[in-house]
């Protein structure tokens, strides 16, 4: 044994263990996020049970089991302790009972042994609503204009048809409110600014004024029309309602206008569940968030992230490549370039929040403020560019990621054998031609790697964005159908910030938790794919130049 220790073998095993531990950490991280994030969309089985705490009248519980834990029996209140039957630990379940407007809370910790007569009724209805979260109960009747039209099973059969009618109406209303009315309001605001601008320029041309007034009237007229349409639509959509009996025995009426989906999870077959699951995933990716972001989808966050990253790539690629080419091909190699190289390398290690601070001070307040003063005096006092927004966020992140692109491109440039450059020059090409025709095409995979790494970093970066343009809920998308289509000054939503906001600023953390995991999984997935692509390109590149060098 002593000899064994002397040989150092045990220490090798220990170092190996640290690799194993690191690997376990990486994979378990991903697995935890994946399991929790993806599990959320699966239709949970609804239980019905009698909940009997000692000395408390029993109540009926209807809901899905969300989570459970084992706790020390001693930590429970005296009343509950006998339930453990003398065991040291007792199981507690977290049940999502929904029906928030009736009970004030939609999650309850219950002691598992007190749940008696657990059943899984086939006909339990889950109603997903636009407000107040889920509702669990039994469908009693379907009403039209306050009159019961069908009851029981028949109501359930009719429900899906009526629901899709309500959904059609809802999307019509949404289209008018968000799309057309939104466009009108946008144009009205533009007119107001135009008028203000004329005022500031002391331009009192009555013709221009009349023109503005005329346009405004026409918009107002359109808006009136839409309002009329809306009143009709609202009347239509509020026609139907359902009556649902909740676990306390009370009958609750829910108008279909407020219903997102209604289904009976316990009676779904396995293929139906899979279809349901995929539908949910699709909804998650394409829907707007509801209820302070705790329900619905994350589409605006995905959209905002993508637009911001694209803008950033447009800025960072040319500048990063030019700088790398300058440093590697044009600048005289010496102390200065070495210093610059080290500095650029180090900038990648400067905390991202520092870039955020710089972005806020320089881009937003200084540049944005100046732009507002010079080009848009009419918007004052509300700032236009002088406030955090998409453009400044992209610029800040471009600055943050430019070292990544520079370093990667330079590495690519330095891997190109000298003989190729010399060959090209010897054949009479100018330096620019060599660069353009030979060097850059050969280095393009390296540029690509740099860009992918930059995108991966930008997509996951949150701290600087909190200062320069991200909000938890943006009223409008940064790219839409209103000219000039790309609104650089707008604030936007971002996946990473969405995680932070959902997990920590949300009013209903328990309800938001699965969504956080799902969002995090999406983000991690995108970033891992990006990184693996970059690694793959890099490895291929190395192989390629290895063969070049041997030639």
């Amino acid at each position, binding site marked *: 044994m002593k000899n064994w220790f002397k040989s150092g*073998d045990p220490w090798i095993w220990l170092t*190996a263990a640290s690799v194993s531990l690191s690997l376990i950490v990486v994979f378990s991280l991903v697995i935890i996020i994946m399991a929790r994030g993806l599990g959320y969309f699966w239709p949970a089985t609804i239980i019905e049970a009698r909940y009997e705490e000692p000395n408390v009248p029993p109540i009926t519980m209807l809901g899905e089991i969300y989570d459970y834990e084992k706790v020390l029996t001693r930590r429970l209140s005296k009343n509950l302790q006998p339930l453990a039957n003398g065991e040291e630990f007792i199981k507690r379940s977290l049940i999502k009972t929904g029906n928030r407007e009736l009970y004030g809370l939609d999650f309850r910790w219950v002691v598992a042994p007190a749940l008696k007569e657990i059943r899984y009724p086939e006909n339990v209805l889950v109603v997903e609503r636009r407000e107040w979260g889920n509702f669990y109960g039994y469908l009693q009747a379907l009403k039209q204009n306050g009159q019961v039209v069908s009851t029981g099973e028949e109501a359930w059969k009719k429900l899906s048809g009526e629901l899709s009618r309500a959904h059609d109406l809802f999307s019509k209303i949404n289209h008018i409110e968000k799309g057309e009315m939104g466009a009108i309001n946008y144009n009205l605001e533009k007119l107001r600014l135009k008028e203000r601008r004329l005022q500031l320029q002391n331009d009192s041309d009555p013709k221009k004024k009349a023109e503005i007034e005329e346009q405004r009237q026409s918009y107002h007229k359109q808006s009136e029309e839409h309002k009329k349409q809306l009143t009709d639509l609202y009347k239509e959509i509020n026609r139907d309602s359902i009556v649902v009996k909740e676990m306390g025995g009370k009958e609750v009426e829910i108008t279909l206008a407020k219903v997102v989906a209604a289904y009976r999870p316990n009676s779904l077959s396995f293929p139906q569940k899979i279809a349901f699951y995929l539908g949910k995933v699709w909804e998650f990716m394409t829907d707007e968030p509801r209820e302070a972001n705790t329900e619905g989808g994350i589409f605006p966050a995905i959209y905002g992230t993508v637009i911001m990253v694209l803008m950033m790539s447009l800025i960072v690629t040319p500048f990063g490549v030019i700088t790398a080419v*300058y440093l590697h091909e044009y600048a005289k190699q010496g102390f200065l370039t070495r210093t610059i190289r080290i500095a650029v390398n180090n900038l990648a*290690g400067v905390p991202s*929040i520092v870039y955020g*601070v710089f972005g806020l001070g320089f881009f937003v307040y200084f540049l944005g403020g100046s732009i507002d003063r010079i080009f848009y005096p009419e918007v004052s006092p509300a700032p236009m560019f002088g406030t955090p927004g998409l453009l400044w966020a992209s610029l800040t992140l471009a600055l943050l990621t430019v070292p990544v692109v520079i370093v990667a491109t330079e590495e690519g440039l330095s891997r190109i054998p000298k003989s190729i450059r010399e060959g090209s020059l010897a054949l009479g090409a100018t330096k620019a031609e060599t660069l353009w025709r030979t060097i850059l095409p050969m280095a393009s995979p390296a540029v690509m790697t740099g860009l992918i790494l930059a995108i991966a970093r930008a997509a996951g970066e949150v701290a600087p964005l909190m200062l320069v343009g991200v909000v938890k809920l943006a009223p409008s998308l940064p790219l839409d159908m209103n000219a000039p289509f790309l609104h650089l000054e707008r604030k936007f939503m971002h996946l*990473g910030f969405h995680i932070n906001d959902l997990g920590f600023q949300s009013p209903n953390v328990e309800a938001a938790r699965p969504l956080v995991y799902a969002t995090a999984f999406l983000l991690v997935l995108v970033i891992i794919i990006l990184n693996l692509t970059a690694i793959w390109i890099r490895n291929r590149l190395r192989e390629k130049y290895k063969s070049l060098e041997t030639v």
Partner: protein
Amino acid sequence: MQLNTPRIVPALDAPESIRRRNWRMLKDRLATYSMTLGGISVIIAIVLIFFYLLYVVYPLLVPASATRTADYALPAPDAGNTLFLDVDEKADLGVRFTHLGHVVFFNAKNGAVISDETLKLPSDVQITSYNANEENGLMLYGLSNGHVVLIQRHFRESFEGQRRVIKPEITYPLGDNPVVLDEKNQSLIALSLQRDSKSTTLTGITQDQRLIVANYQEKESFLEDDKTLERTASEIHLSEGSDIQFMVLDKNQENLYLANKHGQILQYNVKDKEKPLLMQTVPAFEKGQITTLKILTGGISLLVGNSEGKVSQWFPVRNEKNEQPLTHIRDFTSQNASIIQISTEQRRKGFVAADSEGKIGIYNSTAHRTLLVEKISDVSLKQLVISPRADNLLAEDVKGQIYLWKVHNEHPEVSWTALWGKVWYESYPKPDYIWQSSSASNDFEPKFSLTPLTFGTLKGALYAMLIAVPLAIFGGIYAAYFMSPKMRGIVKPSIEVMQAIPTVVLGFLAGLWLAPFLEKNLPGTFAVFLIIPLGVLLFAWLWHITPKRFTNWLPDGWHAAMLIPIVLILLAISFYLSAPLEQLLFDGDMRLWLNKVGITFDQRNALVVGFAMGVAVIPTIFSITEDAVFSVPKHLTTGSLALGATPWQTMTRVVILTASPGIFSAVMIGMGRAVGETMIVLMATGNTPVMDFNLFQGMRTLSANIAVEMPESEHNSTHYRVLFLAALVLFTFTFLVNTAAEVVRHRLRKRYGSL
């Protein structure tokens, strides 16, 4: 000989060739210029970050300056001597209250009299004393018959079109008639006043040295229109020779401070207006006489000026006996002549003192900073007031000349001590490091100590490094030196992917999943540190003593893969043992036990941050270490092995020594990353700026602090600039650390090049 074949390429000297060549040369030059320009501008942009941060921080370091706007002779000299000067928000209008009961409003820019109003006083009395409160424009006159008159001046602002017009006005808040203060009708020689919406407290010293404390409550009567006053009063006979000269009352109308000729300060508690209590008598200065008393904005601190030019700050400090004796806090000694008057800024903890040499000094109390000493008159000053925005000064000298000065004093709250040292803040029992930046009220004393934040930053980084360094360095060494190339092909990308996981994801996992998990399994968490190494050693030994034919199937360099299930089992054992361990060692509840031994426990604490940030920096350190170890030249290791050293001996005596600069730089870069990490700390701690190495408490780091407070801070305010300073500190720190690491790495590379 003539060639008949058509030319494919024109001759070198053909005009088109020359043109083409010139065009190509031009393009080449253009490319050179644009590349150079682009490259240099990006480099400049990068440098700009540093200089822009510096540019924003710089105004914090600039001392105050003052420039003369105007001086002119006393407006309406016949109205009497100035008792008190005052000035409006924008220093357009000045006002002078005189000893003859005149109130003279004048244009502060040129001294032209705007209006001269006379108080309604009975004919047979004189003004014998006064007290002013410039914050709400109150002026109290004491009369020779023991009565007082309270007036309030207003600068009514209105707009005539675009032009701003200010109209002066005087009102009598306690009614037009003089109010009785001393029922014995003795002449009043000193006064003080405080007034809030309903209640007014007046105190006076009579000629025969009685202290009178009176409170007036205004009652609206239902029937008539006028108000009635309800007076509650008491009096104290001061001892013979107490010689009270000055008196001030604090804003809460609770503490009354008196100063006598013998240089003592008397503190009375007048909370109960019917029973004033003498709390203490303290000598204010070792030398010199008290020349002026003033309450600092916020109503807690007392400023005392003396005949030697010193101003001291005092405030009540709670002691162990739960008393609040007046305590000497700090001195300002930048002036040399007797302090004549002190005027306080209304929105900051700053003040201006005028002395008998004609100098003024501008100070800030919290920062303990003298911002400016400036001579504004050749003779002694008599009156001084600073405008509500603290950007204009109005002063009068003994010759009756009035001076208006413009003051630039943007950021007086910041000094080296205020940022990094212990500061004795108002209402605190002792000097301390505190960060507490914002509040809605002007009375709040901003506390800009970066020390607790820096401490928090280092604490977080330290715990993260404690977890990351051993794991990452051992891991890197193994991966570079012992691992089979095939496995390395899997491990390296995995670790690189780990590096790319957004910290916001790590932070949210740490906050929402890890923190509750650790809280539930605390003993198990600590058991991990013991069980895993011992367990692995045990397994290795079992492996060693198992006959070779059973273990041969494992190729060399795959230990780590082999160990994954083992480590998983060991982890499971540790957490399975958690509850029994808790039962055994900590009476079943480690949190309670910790509380009992006096350790506070937060759910989101440094331990959680240590794990999460550890995970964030492991890949960085791992990769660089792996690189450094891997690039140790092969002939060194093979040589060592050939001489009979075991692989481990080769490792420790040859490889690690050669690679040590690289490993050092790995640690430095990891450190830089941990120091600047924002999201993990933001989400995994409670963000309270405490200074405590306690593993079970949270902290607030520089970066998290910026993320939390920057969006709310007002552009260009002191708070904004201090946050920029925090960013600059972070930038400089990480930049230096990274540069050091990078230089070391370059050296290393050179040395290997020569080997």
